């Protein structure tokens, strides 16, 4: 298992953002759905080692992220795209991805090829020398994805990765996720259920800090067969599970 | 409703914090009020540095967190900015008057900083006034008083007063109209 979480909890003052979650993930693409404020971003931030859990145990890629010694090799094999990508507008696309390749401690001899590959995989080859401030929002998002995959991560965490991408780019991106998911664990937080249906092997649904559903996209669709809300099977399943959890 | 808007605007700009920094700067100037009284280059700099600090606080205080959303939503914004600049300038004048600071120099430097902020943004608003103060100090070192170095002129110099006030007016107008980028 690449992700092993038991009783994972995160509080912000009195508010519980993530409430005793158990999660075990191997290779494959895992979609994380849920309404706003469900705790998806907080869960991803804990898995990305950006914040520490308040309680519970967590092992990622065989390492304990709370342990100083384990954190470094873990981070070398981690890819993360936060919901709001911070970037330095004066960096070029190549520099930005190279910068993170270096920070992720890719062996020097491999940095250039890894950067070129990541940029090509996200379709930004022609804009490699462009400064980030000259790019559109969708392109910046792709740069964010490029930096997240530059180290061929064993665990890839993507928070709203398709926000700002046009339909053609989203189709390409789903293919990229499936490709990476063959050997790695990809955890995608999204509001777009069609992304989950097209790219994910498994799906989890969060509500109020808890995972209220785990299964395949087909199983989620099946839950909504008789539910009146939603235009597509997955949307009906999503709405049905939420309604059941709330009642 | 207007009062409520002014209140929310003031909070968004952390005006209370700006006033506190101005008070601290004026206090520091008061503590070294016996220094920087002569005509030499370092004394000139010592006199001008607190004025740049006051200008920086007045200008950087204009920067808001809302960006385009705010600009596209309110026709009141230039007036709110103008009010903020005038209020903080007035407070700075009162605070600095206690240490015998020249109001002409204070007005001129606040104006210069506002103009720089309007052109280069609040983060770089200090660059031109700082360079200008250094240039004035350089002229003082050479015992020269070129026309542009109005802070070097005697207290009653009408031309220097006019330049200081003109800079303040231009700065207030520019910062009110365009804000700090």
């Amino acid at each position: 298992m690449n992700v092993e979480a038991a009783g994972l909890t995160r509080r912000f003052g009195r508010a519980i953002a993530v409430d005793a979650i158990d999660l075990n993930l191997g290779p494959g693409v895992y979609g994380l759905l849920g309404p706003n404020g469900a705790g998806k971003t907080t869960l991803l931030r804990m898995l990305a080692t950006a914040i520490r859990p308040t309680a519970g145990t967590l092992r990622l890629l065989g390492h304990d992220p709370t342990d100083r010694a384990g954190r470094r090799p873990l981070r070398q094999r981690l890819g993360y795209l936060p919901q709001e990508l911070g970037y330095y507008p004066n960096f070029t696309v190549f520099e930005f991805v190279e910068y993170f390749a270096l920070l992720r401690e890719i062996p020097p001899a491999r940095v250039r090829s890894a950067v070129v590959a990541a940029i090509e995989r996200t379709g930004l080859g022609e804009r490699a020398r462009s400064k980030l401030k000259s790019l559109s929002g969708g392109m910046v998002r792709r740069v964010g994805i490029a930096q997240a995959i530059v180290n061929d991560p064993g665990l890839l965490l993507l928070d709203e990765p398709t926000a700002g991408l046009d339909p053609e780019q989203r189709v390409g991106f789903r293919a990229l996720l499936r490709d990476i998911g063959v050997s790695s664990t990809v955890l995608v937080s999204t509001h777009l259920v069609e992304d989950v249906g097209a790219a994910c092997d498994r799906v989890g649904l969060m509500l109020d800090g808890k995972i209220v559903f785990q299964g395949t996209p087909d199983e989620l669709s099946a839950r909504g067969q008789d539910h009146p809300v939603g235009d597509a099977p997955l949307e009906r399943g999503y709405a049905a599970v939420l309604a059941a959890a709330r009642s | 409703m207007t009062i409520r808007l002014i209140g929310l605007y003031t909070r968004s700009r952390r005006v209370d914090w700006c006033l506190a920094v101005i008070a601290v700067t004026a206090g520091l100037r008061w503590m070294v009020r016996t220094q920087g009284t002569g005509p030499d280059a370092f004394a000139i700099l010592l006199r001008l540095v607190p004025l740049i600090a006051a200008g920086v606080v007045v200008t950087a205080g204009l920067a808001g967190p809302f960006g385009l959303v705010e600009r596209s939503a309110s026709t009141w914004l230039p007036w709110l900015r103008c009010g903020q600049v005038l209020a903080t300038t007035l407070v700075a004048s009162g605070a600095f008057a206690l240490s015998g600071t020249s109001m002409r120099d204070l007005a001129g430097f606040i104006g210069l900083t506002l103009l720089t902020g309007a052109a280069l943004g609040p983060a770089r608003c200090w660059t031109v006034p700082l360079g200008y103060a250094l240039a004035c100090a350089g002229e003082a070192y050479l015992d020269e008083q070129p026309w542009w170095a109005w802070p070097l002129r005697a207290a009653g110099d009408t031309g220097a007063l006019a330049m200081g006030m003109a800079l303040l007016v231009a700065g207030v107008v520019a910062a009110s109209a365009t804000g700090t980028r």
Partner: protein
Amino acid sequence: MTRLLRIELRRNASLVLLPVIAVLWLIWPIGPHLTQIALWGSRSMDIQGTVIALGPFAAGAGAWTAYREHRHGACDLLATTPRAAATRGLTTLAASAVWAALGYVAPAVVILVITSQQATWGHPLVLPLLDGLLAVTASSALGFACGRLVPGRFTAPLVAVGLLGLLTLGAEAKTGHVAFVGALSPAYPSVSLDASVFFPVQPDLAVLQCAGAIGVTGAALGATVWHAGARRIGLAVATTGVVLVGAAAVLVSSGHRGADNAIMVPALDSVGVRQPLPYTPVCGGTLLRVCVHPAYEVKLAVLASALNRLAAPLADTPGLPHEIDEGPIYLSQVTTTHSGVLEIPPVFIQGDTLGPESTPVNDTTALAFVDAPGEGPAQADDAQRAVALYLIQQAGADAGPEFIPTSPAIRAAAARLAARSPAARHTWLATHIVAVRAGTADLP
């Protein structure tokens, strides 16, 4: 690591400031100095003095760079990378410091090359030059640390302006042990100019200024590392830096001014080398012989002409000194010896005239012409001031208020003297100059 530094160097905010720094070098009055007498000591000090202009900009750029992660919301993303936050921070700091240092070194090299073709005396003073470099680097590091510790919109501007205030306050340090602490400011001349001409260079203050700059850099590096999470090592480095600054402050406070006008620190003292350097003066002049140090030989003609013009009305009057020697003395010590030699400090020349900075020397020299031997300018009475004022004005100069404070009566007396015919004036001076020197004469 090198590649990371390369990216940081390419995209560092300080890079944008390089044109500003170039303008600063142009507006700072080092340009006019290049036309004056080229003493290696003077040029070295000029270069060090640019810290007051470069330091604040380096600090502002450092602070601006330091909180870019915060400003651009990249903290989360960067926190998930395996590279230690301290390493990341220090790489960015290093890039800022490199550009700041380059902004100091590149123009300094140009000035040194120019000086090498003009120099009349001495050799480049390494310590002041090094001190300037360390101070610019320390400014950048200090700004960076402030930006990391207190990220916010006011940080960069206030750090820059605050540093300029501190440097200036230090440079204003004049006398007294407490004020000597201010001499640690790199804007304070670390070596007395006289020291490089008339005395061997006294390095006490320069060494302490270097130590202070290294201490500030250490404290800033420590604070940056501490902020990045390496608390223990950060605290240790920062503490070492603060202790170094403290030690330098204590040592400089124990100093006193030596004969060469330099700050001497007993703990670092080398009294044995404080003897004046021997030299053979070069002399010129008509009415009065004017002798200068060979370093100032190129200005001898201008100086001799100016001083002879000052003394011209006193030609053939009794008691006029027969020689003026330039030496390492204070203005308050300008006087005629009983052997008829008048000693003055080195004089600033601009082009072919005395520069405005020479006014005090001009004033004290005129007073010494009409003072009793051994008396300093502070003891002059109204009659002596009136005659001195006349001498200065007839030579085409202006008197300053420091040594010749004038009253309406003194100005009127000088005007009366000037209004006399040359013959009548010479007669009055010839008959009254002894009484004037003795302090028993009435206003002319």
